[in-house]
C-alpha cells in the first residue's frame, strides 16, 4: 500500500485527532460546544475550523496548488488571529498535524516502509506553517488598517470641507505667496 493510500484511509482518524488538538486550546466547556454543535451558523468557529482542516487534509493528499491550500488555511487563521492567543499559540495547530499523522501511522506494520514519503509529507506541513504565518501577519496588519481607516473616515468630511473653505478663500492667491506671508507673520514682521 502506498503512503498516500494509507494516509487517505487514516484520514478520518487523523482529522479527529488534529481537530481535538486545536479544541484543547479552548476552555473545556467551549471545546465541547465547538465539537458538538454541527450547525455552521450556530457554531461559526467550530464548523469553520473543522471544515477548514478537512479541506486542508484533502488538499495535502491531492497536492493541490498553494492558492487553494492558502484559502482553507485563511479560514482558520483569520479566526485565531483575533482570539486570545499569542502568535505561537494561534499557529501551533499546524504542527499538531504531524503528531496526529505519526500517532495514527505508528500502529501500522508497514508504516516504516515510507520514511522518505513521511519526511516529504512533514515538509509540506512545515510549508503550511510558513503560509499560516504569512496569513496571520496579514490579518494582524488588517486589524491595524481598520483602526486607521475608521479614524480617517471620521475626519474625511472635515478635511474635505476645510479644503473647500481654503480653496474658496485663497482661489486667486499663489500658494507660494501664502507660505511666505505665513513665515513673515511667524517672525513677527
Amino acid at each position, binding site marked *: 500500500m502506498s503512503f498516500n493510500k494509507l494516509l487517505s484511509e487514516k484520514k478520518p482518524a487523523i482529522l479527529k485527532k488534529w481537530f481535538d488538538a486545536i479544541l*484543547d486550546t479552548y476552555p473545556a466547556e*467551549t471545546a465541547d*460546544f465547538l465539537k458538538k454543535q454541527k450547525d455552521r451558523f450556530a*457554531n*461559526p468557529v467550530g464548523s469553520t475550523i473543522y471544515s477548514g482542516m478537512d479541506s486542508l487534509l484533502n488538499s495535502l493528499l491531492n497536492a493541490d496548488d498553494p492558492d487553494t491550500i492558502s484559502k482553507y488555511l485563511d479560514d482558520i487563521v483569520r479566526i485565531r488571529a*483575533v482570539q486570545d492567543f499569542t502568535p505561537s499559540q494561534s499557529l501551533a495547530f499546524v504542527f499538531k498535524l504531524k503528531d496526529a499523522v505519526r500517532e495514527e501511522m505508528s500502529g501500522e506494520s508497514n508504516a516504516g516502509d515510507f520514511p522518505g514519503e513521511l519526511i516529504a509529507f512533514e515538509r509540506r506541513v512545515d510549508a503550511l506553517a510558513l503560509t499560516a504565518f504569512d496569513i496571520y501577519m496579514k490579518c494582524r496588519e488588517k486589524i491595524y488598517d481598520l483602526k486607521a481607516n*475608521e*479614524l480617517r473616515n*471620521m475626519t474625511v*468630511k472635515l478635511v474635505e470641507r476645510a479644503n473647500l473653505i481654503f480653496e474658496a478663500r485663497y482661489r486667486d492667491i499663489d500658494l507660494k505667496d501664502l507660505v511666505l506671508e505665513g513665515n513673515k507673520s511667524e517672525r513677527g514682521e
Partner: protein
Amino acid sequence: MAKFTAKPKDLIQIDFKNPKTGWMDTPVEIREHMFCHPAKAKELETVGFPNIHEWRPQDENWNLPEGWKETVLNGIKERLQKYRSFHVFMDICVRCGACADKCHFYLGTGDPKNMPVLRAELLRSIYRKYFTASGKILGKTAGARELTEDVLKEIWYYYYQCTECRRCSVFCPYGIDQAEITMIGRELTNLLGLQLGWIGGPVANCYMKGNHLGLEPHTIKSNIEMMLDDIETITGIRINPTFNRKGAEILFVTPSGDLFAMPGIYTAMGYLMLFHELGLDYTWSTYASEGGNFGFFSSNEMAKRLNSKIYAEAKRLGVKWVLGGECGHMWRVLHQYMDTWNGPADFLEVPKSPITGTVFDNAKSAKMTHISEFTADLIKHGKLKLDKSRNDHLKVTFHDSCNTARGMGMFEEPRYIIKNVCNHFYEMPENTIREKTFCCGSGTGLNASENMELRMRGGLPRANAVKYVHEQHGVNMLANVCAIDRATLSASMDYWVPGVGVAGISELVGNALVMEGEKERTADLRGETLPGKEGAE
C-alpha cells in the same frame, strides 16, 4: 492577540491546553484590544457623573474611590427596590444553559464568561452574598462570593463585552433580559466613575450640543448642504430643506452619524431626496439633532435626560408628529422608554402620512414613526416612482438590527422596501435573521477602534452568515437600518468578507427613486457609475 511574553525556555515546554478551573477560581485577565479607553474627566463633569478619577483598565490599581464597595452594594440595593425585573432576573435563572451558546461574543471569543448565563452570574454571585440568606450562610456552595476589587474588574470587563442585543433572551425559557442586567451592571460601574470614553464623550456632546458628534447648528447645516451639492450633481435637482422651522407638520430626527460618517451620509441623501419628491412639510432640527442615545449605555437617568429634547423640540416647533431615521438603539429607546420617561406627548397628534392618509396606530402614544414604516406605506400605495434597475449592480442581503428586530418587532417593512427598490435580494440563513439576528458586535458604545479585536470576534457570527450568501449568491451589499451597523459592519466586512459593502435602506431608495425633473442618472448616490452608463458623461 494576547501579549507575547513567553521566554524561549517556556516556549519549549509550552502546553497549549487550557487550565481546568471553575469560573470563580479563574481570575480575570484584562486584555489589550478587548476594552475601550476610559472617559475624560471633563466629559463626565459635563453631565455630573460621580466619582470622576484618573484610571486605566490595564493598570493594577484603578484608584477606586473610598467606600467603593458600599457604593456598589447600595447601588444594587436601590436598583433591586426600584426595578422589579432586576430582582426577578437575579433570582429566577435555573442555569439551564439555553442562552449559553446564543451570544455572538461567546461564539466569537470562546470565553465561557461571555455566556449570558455566566455574565449574569458574575453579578448574581454578589447579589446572593449580600442580599440572600442562603448566600450569606452557605457562601460559595450557594453560588455566592465576596465583592473584591478583582471581582469588580471582572464585572466591568465582561459587562462592556455585551452589546445588550437581547438575542439570548429570545431563547431563555424564563424570558430573562440580559440587556437589563448589563444595563444595571454598567450603572454600577458608572457610580464609580468607570465610564468609557466612547460613551462618556458622546453623552457629553449630546447634552451640550444635541448630538453625539458635537455638531453645532452651522455645521449640521453645512454638512447637509454638501449632500445637497452631491444630490444636485447626480440628479440635477437642487433641494432646499428647512431647519428649525416652526409650524412644520413633521419633525425629522435621525442619528447624527447620518450627517457625518461614511456610509451614513448616503442614507441621509436618500431621506432628503424622498422628502423633496413627496413635497413633505417637514423640518430638520439642529437641537433635536440626535436620535441615538448613548445615555442609554450609561444609566437610565442619563438616557432620560438626553431623550427629553425630542418632545421638547417637537413642542417648541409646534409640529404634529415626529418621523425618525434609520437607527437601532434609538428605536429601542423611542419605542419602549420615551413615552414613559418624557411623555405623554399629548400636544402631538397620532402620526398620519400626509401622502397616503395612513394612520400609524402603532405609534398612537409615542407619536413617532420609523422611516421604514413610512416608506413601505408609500410604496404599498404606489406613491413612489421607482427604477429598480439603478440598483442592479447590487446584490443585497438584509441585516436585522437587534433593536429594530427584537426591540420593536419590525421585520417586514425593510424587506418590503428592498424588494421594491432592488432586483437582487437574498436572505441570510433563518437562524441568523429576524428575531434571531446576530448583533454587529459593536453596539452599546463598543464601536471604538481600540477594541477592534473584540469587535471582530463579536462580529464573526453575523459575518459568517454574510459570507455564506456572498459565496452562494454573490451578495455584495449588506443593507440595514442602523447607524452603528453602517459604521461598524464596514470594518467587520472588510476583515471577514471583503467585497461586501454596507448601506442604509434609504440610500437604496434614493438610488431607485425617479424624481420629477431629474436628469438621466449615470451614477448612484456614492458617485459610482451605474452599469451601462459608462462613458455617458
